[in-house]
């Protein structure tokens, strides 16, 4: 009994993401239903691009067949290299820059986008080896990429993203519509 109580209180304790990051969302990316992205912005302005829990890839029963950071014949996000404190040489991304393509075992392909302007610092190579990280821990170990916005844009880049509350209301409306149509 004690143990159960403990578990409940601990479940509510703020996690690393809660403590240091602000969650921002992009719903229905590029007009594609439910392809929601979640951007975790650290208090130091750095952004981590992740899949929102509502993204189709993360829905029940799906498995990932492959993840590809080669977004065109000439450009692979795996070739991104940054050097020094100023992160010279990193690819500069705009809101709609594709980061990778994920193919599920049912052959559907999804493109994951940057969602914010900034310099690409790294992509998560761990998910290439272990795609399950993406399924199991989409907002931490299953992150897609790390992007550093320009200092002067660190506040403005999230202006056209949704806050957590706004996103939750979008999601709840979405399920209302679904329940109405079904």
């Amino acid at each position, binding site marked *: 009994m004690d*143990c159960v109580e403990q578990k409940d209180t601990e479940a509510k*304790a703020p996690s*690393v993401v809660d403590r240091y990051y602000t969650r921002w969302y992009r719903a229905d990316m590029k007009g594609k239903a439910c392809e929601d992205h979640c951007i975790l912005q650290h208090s130091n*302005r750095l952004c981590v691009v992740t899949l929102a829990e509502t993204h189709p890839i993360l829905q029940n029963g799906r498995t990932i067949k492959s993840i590809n950071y080669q977004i065109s014949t000439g450009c692979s996000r795996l070739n991104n290299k*940054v050097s020094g*404190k100023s992160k010279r040489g990193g690819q500069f991304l705009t809101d709609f820059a594709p980061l990778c393509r994920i193919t599920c075992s049912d052959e559907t392909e999804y493109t994951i986008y940057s969602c914010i302007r900034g310099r690409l610092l*790294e992509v*998560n190579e761990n998910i290439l080896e272990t795609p399950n990280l993406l399924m199991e821990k989409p907002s*931490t*170990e299953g992150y897609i990429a790390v992007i550093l916005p320009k200092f002067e844009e660190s506040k403005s880049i999230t202006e056209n993203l949704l806050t957590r509350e706004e996103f939750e209301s979008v999601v709840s409306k979405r399920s209302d519509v679904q329940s109405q149509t079904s």
Partner: protein
Amino acid sequence: MLPLKEKDKPIVQKLLSAGCCARCVLRFCCVSVQAAYRQPQQETLKELKAFIADTENSKCQDSAGPDSRDENNKSHEAAVSDTPEDPPSKRAKLEPSVAAAQCEEEDAAAAVVRPKDDESPVCVVCLGILQELCGTIQAVKIAEAVKAESYEFDTLVLSVSLPAQLCVREHSCWLHVKKEVREKGLVFDKDDVIQVKEAFKWIMQGLVAKELGGVAVVTRSAFEVGVEFTHPQTDADCHFLATTCPDCFKPTKNKQSVFTRMAVVKALEKISDAKFLKHYPCPPTQPTSSCISQDIQCLHVSVFVAGRYNKFCRSLPQTPWVIDGERRMESSVEELIAAPILSAFRADGFNFSSSGREDVDVRTLGNGRPFAMELLNPHKARLNKVEMKKLQEIINKSSDKIRVRDLQIVTREAMSRMKEGEEEKTKTYTALVWTQKPIQREDIGFIDDIKDLTLDQKTPLRVLHRRALAVRQRVIHSMNARFLDPHHFYLGLKTQAGTYIKEFVHGDFGRTKPNLCQLLKTDTDILELDVESVDVDWPPAIPE
């Protein structure tokens, strides 16, 4: 008597005619007898003029024939004793040539200067620095400035900052008498001309020492008193160099003017004599006013203080925490330590450094973390052991949040030992760890057996905005786990310096590998962290 020789005479005459002051004349004659500069300039001028009077005769004789020196002197003496009131007739008799005409010309030029003697015209080379700016009044001004700031010191060194155009004027004057100076002997060249700075110091050092009650004014001292002169009227003297040597005058962010002394000297080394003479008068033009003497700048070299500090508070940053120009926390470790030290040494400011640093929410316990402070411009540079102990007590009584031990004065060199230790030394920590899955005592027992675990740590996201992205290998030498309850335990760690402990515990999005989540096969998070020791054996311990 001025230590001048026969061959100095044409130099003296030429320079006096050109509007040089008596002391600048001595400089160009390469006179290195300090006493000659210390005597009143009016006196020197008088002696030089007596010299000119002689010069008229001896010079003419010199040009009459390059005879042996004995003969020259003899006839020179004769000339002076025979007809001192009537040199023209004598001259005419001896040498009715071009040289005589030249002498007359120079005589006339000297005569122009003569009526102004009483108020002594401003020197075309030193712009007054070796004239009225170099004497008791100036010495009193310097002494007053030093006394006003009540510095404690044994010796002082005088430093002089001169307007850059002085180099241009010096060069012009050098070209004016170059031939004559070189004729003094094979060894004489521009480097042998006594510098204005040098002469100024020879004159002033003794006067300043006297005003300060006999303190030693020396060439090397920890206490520097700076005298700065400017002369806005002639600042434009340098400007032509920018067009002749543009590569010497590159604008930089920090400089107010590109015409720094260094740049001007460099440009003057490059420019040919012909080019210089085309752009600048030789000798230099007569200024209407003397240099302006700026405020006296006193500066004592830094004193370095070291010690170890404890931090007992989880809401105290090590250094002031400012975001967007706004302060985030009330105080900081460095400020709490610095305030009493600054007032004890009466320093203007400080630079704080330490062997690593802890986060705002991390405590530093045990013997503490080595730190060192550079105290800028301390007005008091010495505290004995008892006074240091007292100072340490003042710091410790001033706040419960921190504590200092082993407080001592160290050398600048010794400070580097602290930084050397940073990479190789070890640190020990205690972390309060939360586990997602409930644990039992025996679930964490294996942790104690882990030895020398090598981590691959990518630069933590938390600091990635200001540090380079890299994978760093760090070693956890040993760990121990102390069970608290099914979701908490204390983790002790002994690690290589530079290991990010928080990231080892929560994994930092899987960017530190291995991490505690992987070892325990559940999510783990860090709730509290204490530094138990920073194993650097510097500064030496001071017994309580």
